[in-house]
């Protein structure tokens, strides 16, 4: 039962500042996901909230109480560590019950909580094993179980699925989502996998180099990225970017003589002579007869296929346009030969324009 606030939180290691005054408000019961490339300060931020890392400036509060100087044990948080951090000398049962035992709970109560957690996470068959005798996925679940037996105010997850194979990861993703629905609690979840971020989050916080670049619901950050970094980081495959210039008559000019009309949305927002970056997703560039309805279709674009990647329900096409390699999607796929030239339409209503200098959205 707690919200979490970060006010201008700074982290320095000696002279090196790695988190530069970030502000974050996590509401009670909210599922917030921190994403960002490796080394951007996600773990550091999480560890500061947990109290494992001292903060060099600013203020952290949990449930209205400033916790800057509280040790981890007084913050009523649970943390699932990137590499599980199970107690190797304890059985699964002891691992799960450890925090309750430390808190001086009755054995009967510990047993009940441990059994409940083991049922939720399907751990019953391994209760008397030590972590060394478990698979990665099983250890993962023990780490999760250890966090939930305590009924903490806040859950902190640090890339809990990064060591699992793709299938198990997808499965555990669903489990975590169910878990959040079942035990309503505030969750702050760190990952660098944007699929996890999109599927799990109530709100995504995108970090880069110790700054928060953008925060919002998954659809907000997907549909309205504030800059090219967010645009290329969120979504798979990453958004296509083309360097260009605004010319007269609301036209955009790109390399190799390629032109496009300025999308309706941006008419008036740009002026002739301005350097811009055009961004669009593969989903919005589709070959004729293999496309969904377009809201604002561009003139036909002829492009050669460099490589095609059939994914079953759709085919990802790597093509060349205006001197760059870009990706398009073929829905209702048919076999494609490399080198084949197809006619494409771009949905201008789904395009983004960024300022070439600041890389910020011109919306």
């Amino acid at each position, binding site marked *: 039962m707690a919200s979490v606030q970060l006010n201008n939180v700074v982290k320095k290691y000696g002279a090196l500042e790695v988190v530069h005054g970030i502000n974050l408000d996590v509401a009670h019961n909210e599922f917030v996901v921190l994403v960002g490339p490796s080394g951007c300060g996600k773990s550091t931020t999480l560890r500061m909230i*947990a*109290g*494992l890392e001292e903060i060099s400036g600013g203020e952290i509060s949990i449930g209205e109480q400033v916790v800057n100087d509280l*040790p*981890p*044990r007084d913050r009523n*948080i*649970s*943390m699932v*560590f990137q*590499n*599980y*951090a*199970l*107690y*190797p*000398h304890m059985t699964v049962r002891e691992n799960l019950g*450890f*925090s309750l035992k*430390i*808190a001086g709970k009755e054995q009967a109560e510990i047993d009940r909580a441990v059994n409940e957690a083991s049922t939720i996470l399907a751990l019953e068959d391994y209760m008397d094993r*030590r*972590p*060394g*005798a478990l698979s990665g996925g099983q250890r993962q679940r023990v780490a999760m179980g*250890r966090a939930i037996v*305590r009924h903490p105010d806040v859950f902190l997850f640090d890339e809990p699925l990064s060591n699992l194979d793709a299938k198990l990861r997808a499965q555990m993703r669903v489990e975590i989502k169910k878990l959040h629905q079942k035990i309503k609690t505030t969750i702050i979840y760190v990952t660098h996998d944007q699929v996890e971020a999109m599927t799990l989050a109530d709100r995504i916080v995108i970090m880069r180099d110790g700054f928060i670049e953008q925060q919002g619901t998954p659809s907000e950050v997907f549909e309205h990225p504030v800059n090219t970094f967010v645009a290329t980081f969120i979504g798979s495959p990453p958004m296509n970017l083309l360097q260009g210039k605004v010319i007269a008559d609301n036209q955009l000019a790109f390399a190799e003589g390629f032109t496009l009309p300025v999308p309706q949305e941006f008419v008036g927002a740009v002026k002739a002579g301005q350097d811009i970056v055009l961004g669009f997703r593969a989903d919005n560039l589709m070959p004729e007869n293999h496309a969904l309805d377009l809201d604002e279709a561009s003139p036909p674009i002829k492009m050669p296929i460099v490589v095609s990647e059939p994914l079953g329900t759709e085919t990802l096409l790597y093509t060349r346009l205006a001197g760059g390699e870009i990706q398009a999607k073929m829905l209702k796929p048919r076999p494609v030969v490399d080198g084949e030239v197809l006619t494409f339409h771009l949905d201008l209503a789904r395009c983004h324009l960024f300022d070439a200098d600041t890389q910020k959205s011109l919306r």
Partner: protein
Amino acid sequence: MRRKKIPTWFVLIFPALVILAAVVLVPLLFSLYSSFTPYKLTRPDTLFKWIGTFNYQKAINSAVFWAAFGRTVLLLTIALNLEMLLGLGLALLVSRVTRGQRALRTLMMFPMMFSPILVGFQFKFIFNDNVGLVNNALQSLGLTNEAIPWLVDKNLAMFSIIFAEMWSSTSVFAILILAGLFAIPQDPLEAAKVDGCTPWQTFRHITLPFLMPFIYIALAIRSLDVARAYDIVQIMTNGGPARRTELLWTLIGRTGYVDAKMGYANAMGYISIVMAIFFTIFFFRKLNAARSELGMAG
């Protein structure tokens, strides 16, 4: 006629066998044999008189022998436990030091660099009842007027010996436990903090189990060390006065070299070795149990 070829493997290990036989096997067999004779160093012909288990029976029925045996076990128990606790404390303190830790670690090993004989002389002087440092200090501070008989009184002499042993060897524990502290993974410690542990609980439930293998290794090494304790005691009290600090090996040494009863001394030696073997097996069992608990066995 074909000459038999010596197998290669035998040729290869032959030099090693010769050396082993010369330095280990022959002396071992010789001493074992002599323990069944009334061998006296001063009368070599006694070596050829077989008297069966007479020496062993004599040792087993000897109150002096068992007193020394018991005293050795007592010394071992007290010294090892105290050294372990002290070493643990030292290691924990040193591991907390952020500046000059290397220098401190080196300093900590100083006592190990001195020959036990010198340590014995040093403490013989320190605890001397007339000119010793301890009595001098106590008297100057006005705490006592008497000359406390540190090396004469039965209990005080034992205390002084244990003190000297600890001074010279606590660092064995400290160094090994410090190595253990450095080897502890950080994650479980952090997990314990988040799980609500106080620093003491973290130590008790996480740190200590990780240190146990290191502690058992130190105990195994030191138990062998103390079980053959000779030099420090020999110098400080010479097992006396009146055998009040007689340990197994001072007794055996005296019997063999002063009384020249080598056969009898060897018999006592063989009985004592049983004790050393017992402690070694005991601590290695403990070590393996602690290791398998941490999932390190195999």
